[in-house]
Structure formats: structure tokens, C-alpha cells
């Protein structure tokens, strides 16, 4: 089951600076919520990521690879894939991020994510996937926006171009505010990279998906690969049809037998009466 997500946000630093940050695995990785890095080897990051939504929790272990870097187009592509640690499911994602100048000293970052999840979590239909995957990517985008804004804020002395949004709750005082709100404009469009099932990904608005997370939770300095996506939950919703599928035939057969036996009984009865 695949899904696509689009995010865009603007950071108050010139593209050159933002580009440097984008290339730095150690700074990008922690932006993935729930991620922990086990090993960094060049462009290859090994780690695990824990996805938790309410009572549901899934852990994936895998790698993220900076598979493409194009300094001219200012585009990077990160591919990540992972396997569930307690199950047979897999998750993979490709994130393409590009930078372009936006006015003076600001950069527009656009992110396009393609995600694919298999195994138990994928059985539950797209709704769950979208909830979880969308949330993960959205948080990643928000954290990335903050990270880019913060790093450059130090250099530029936080040149006062606040995009608005007093982001509370995330330690870095004095970080230049970034316009994370924009990240909500995910325009899910159907059609997913050649894999089965396609559909629309609804961007769930900028509901308070916790920003506080990323930087804080990942103790190890370079967290995070990105196999996102687990989808969670709601099994029940999903289970019900499966159960029904089993129950209905049995019920139908039972009903058939009942009907037949009634007819039979009636006939016998009539015969007797006649």
C-alpha cells in the first residue's frame, strides 16, 4: 500500500545555508520522530524508528541512504527502508527535498514523499496508513523547518525575519521561527510510484502534532533513518470485515439447512395429515 505526501515550508535563511544543513546526516536524522541512529557509514545510516499512536506501537529497523545529491538543482533524495522488529512487515519511503530561493534570504523547501508499507499494518486500509504516515512526515517536515531555521539563525544572528509561529515547547530558545504551518499543505495526489494501490493522501492539517519531540527524544546524537510509516491501528475497523467474511458463509449455510429442514418437516407433516 503506497501513499504520497507533499509538504512545503519556508525557512528564513538563504538556500546556500539551508543546503549545508540538508547535507548533514547528523542534523537531518534527528528530525525524524521516534528515530534512533545505531550507525552512520558515509551516506548510509542504520537505525530504528518507533512509531506510536495511542496504544499502537510499531518498531522498524532499517537503513536510510542519501541516494542522490544534486548541488545544482539543490535536490536530495533519501531512500529508507525497514523491517518490523516484531513482525514480518516492511516499510519504505523515498523523500525528495528541493530548495529554491524565496525572496531575499529565505528558502522554500518542498518535500515529496512516497511511502510503502506491507504486512499487518498495511492490511488495515489506507485510513490508518494516512493517519500515521502523514503524521510522521508532517512532523519530520516541521522539525526540519525548525532545524534549518535554528542552525542558520545562529549564523545570521536570527535576522528577525520571523515567519510567525512562536514555536513553544522546543528547547532551542532563540531559534528563528519558521513557518512550519505551511507544512500542512500536503496535496495528496493519487498515483504512486508504480506500486500497487494508489490513492489520495489527505494532508491532515496542522493539528498539534507535537513539535517538541524530535530533538529531545533522540538521545544519541545522530538519530535517524527514516523508514516511517507504520500504520496503525484500528484494527477493529479492519477486522470486522474479515470476521464477517467468515461468519456470513456459516450463517448462510445454517440458514439454508434451517429452511430445508422446515420445508421437509412441513412436507412430512402435510403427508401425515393427508
Amino acid at each position, binding site marked *: 500500500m503506497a501513499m504520497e505526501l507533499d509538504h512545503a515550508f519556508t525557512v528564513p535563511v538563504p538556500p546556500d545555508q539551508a543546503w549545508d544543513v540538508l547535507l548533514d546526516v547528523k542534523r537531518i536524522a534527528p528530525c525524524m520522530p521516534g528515530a534512533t541512529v545505531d550507525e552512520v557509514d558515509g551516506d548510509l545510516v542504520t537505525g530504528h524508528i518507533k512509531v506510536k499512536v495511542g496504544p*499502537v506501537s510499531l518498531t522498524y529497523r532499517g537503513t536510510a541512504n542519501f541516494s542522490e545529491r544534486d548541488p545544482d538543482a539543490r535536490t536530495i533524495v533519501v531512500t529508507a527502508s525497514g523491517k518490523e522488529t516484531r513482525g514480518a512487515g516492511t516499510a519504505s519511503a523515498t523523500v525528495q527535498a528541493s530548495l529554491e530561493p524565496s525572496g531575499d534570504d529565505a528558502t522554500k523547501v518542498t518535500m515529496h514523499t512516497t511511502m510503502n508499507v506491507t504486512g499487518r499494518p498495511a492490511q488495515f486500509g*489506507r485510513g490508518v496508513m494516512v493517519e500515521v504516515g502523514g503524521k510522521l512526515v508532517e512532523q519530520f517536515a516541521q522539525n526540519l523547518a525548525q532545524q534549518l531555521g535554528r542552525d542558520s539563525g545562529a549564523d545570521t544572528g536570527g535576522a528577525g525575519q520571523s515567519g510567525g509561529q512562536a514555536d513553544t515547547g522546543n528547547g532551542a530558545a532563540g531559534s528563528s521561527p519558521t513557518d512550519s504551518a505551511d507544512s500542512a499543505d500536503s496535496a495528496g495526489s493519487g498515483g504512486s510510484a508504480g506500486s500497487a494501490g494508489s490513492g489520495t493522501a489527505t494532508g491532515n492539517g496542522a493539528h498539534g502534532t507535537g513539535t517538541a519531540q524530535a530533538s529531545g527524544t533522540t538521545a544519541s546524537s545522530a538519530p535517524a533513518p527514516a523508514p516511517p510509516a507504520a500504520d496503525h491501528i484500528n484494527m477493529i475497523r479492519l477486522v470486522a470485515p474479515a470476521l464477517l467474511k467468515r461468519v456470513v458463509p456459516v450463517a448462510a449455510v445454517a440458514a439454508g439447512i434451517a429452511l430445508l429442514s422446515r420445508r421437509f418437516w412441513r412436507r412430512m407433516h402435510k403427508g401425515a395429515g393427508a
Partner: protein
Amino acid sequence: MIPAKFDYVRPSSLPEAVQALAGGGDDAKVIAGGQSLLPLLRLRLAYPELLVDIGGLGELAGVRDAGDSLVIGARTTHYSLIRDPLIREHCGLIAATAATVADPAVRHRGTIGGSLAHGDPAGDLPAVILALDATLVATGPGGEREIGAADFFVDYLTTSLSPGEILTSVRVPKLGPGWGFRYEKFQPTAQAWAIVGVAALARRDNGHVAEARIGLTNMGTVPVRARAAEAAAAGAPASREALAAAARQADEGSSPPADLRAAADYRRHLARVLTGRALARAAGV
């Protein structure tokens, strides 16, 4: 499938339960009827280390008259909700909705508290509680706390209950005279989850709808109120046409999910149509 290993305790009093839960930290979960949690465990999508079964806490079951409101114990099953005379008299919407929840087996085991604390926006009771402006009461290590229904549902499967808190009861204001109600549920098959559900309350006065309250099921990551439609319905003549017109704004401000069952646009359409029907029935036309 068989759930992963977990510890299990069944306390016999609320303070003991709170203590047990506190001892389990983030990996402890409360279990009541188990109709939402057990499937998660069996599918191995949740791995709590400790389950605190509140099935032994008799004080959490049942409905009590508290003057201008009813206090419904969190452990009250859907089956009891459907038949409780107090609920039928003062908050009939709850009984009517509980009767649509899943199947009889689930209704006999599942509880109102469990349904609310699970926080599934596709569950039926959350939208109803929201439309009724109920207050949820939780007990934790710090004592008792009241949470308005509008503040209770935070995100998909996420409520404002902190890990150590147990939802103990729901206080629902009694509906006065003149109020009608209706829960419209659209489901692909009997017993399935609602693709969209609409809980509507309308107070009729002199041939008009004086006031309306509408809660939507499965139209976002949390149950939502259809405020625009509520405002449009207030003061409208109690006729199908007028209420259907008001219902055209029912999906405003919602962000319905798209999944294998339905596209987001289809859910919006359903919300408008079902709201029109629910309002009409609630207003008695």
C-alpha cells in the same frame, strides 16, 4: 493471533487501580471490556507490559441521577446504556447510538468508558458525547479531574488522559423538553464501523428549530462538531428542505480521511446528506 506477553492485575478498588497503573508507567494500559484493546493485542499492534483490569470495580458501572445531569459510570456496557431507564428518559441519544455499536457480543462486553478512552474517531459514542457537551471525569495519582468533551479527544486514538489516569465516569447534561435527537450511521455492512456517522440534537420551538447540536463520526482524526451547520439550523423552519439546506455546511471545517472504504469527498457528501436526515428526524419532521 496470540498476544505478546503482558502482566495482568485486577484491582478491587479505584485507588488500587490507580496505583497499579502508576506502577506500570507508559507501558501500562487500562482494560475494561477489551473490545478495542484486545484486537490490538491479538494483532500485535500494541505491546503493553501491564494490563490493569478495571472489571472488578463495581463502583464504575451504572447510571446515577445527579439533578440536572446524569452520571454514567465508565464501565457501563453498551447493553446497559440501551436499556437504562434514566438514559432513555434524559439522554435518549446515547441509548439510540449504543444500539448501533457493532454486534450484541461487543455491546455486552464493551463499555462507554472504553469506547471514549480508545479515542477512535470512527467510534460512535465519541461524537455523541461531543454533541451532548458532556464532561468526562478521570482519576489519577493527583486526584480527580474533569475534562470537557471538546478537550478530551486530542488526535487519532489519542485523548487528553495522561498515562496514569483512569476514566471513571461521564457526566451528561439532561436534555430538557422540546429536544429531539437522532444518530444516523452509514456503514457498508451491518456491524461495520461507520463510514460517516452524524449525531444530531435539535430543540424545536414554535415550528422552528431553536437550537441544534451536531457531532460527526469519522470525519477527521477526532470526532468533530459541525458548527457551521448548527448555526445555519438555528432559527430555521422545522422542514426537511430548510434543514437539508443547513446541512449543506455540515462538512465545513472537517478533514475526513480517505481510505479503502471511501474517498474524502465521498465522506463530505455523506456528512451533508446524513446531517440533513438526522436534523429532520431530531426536529420531528
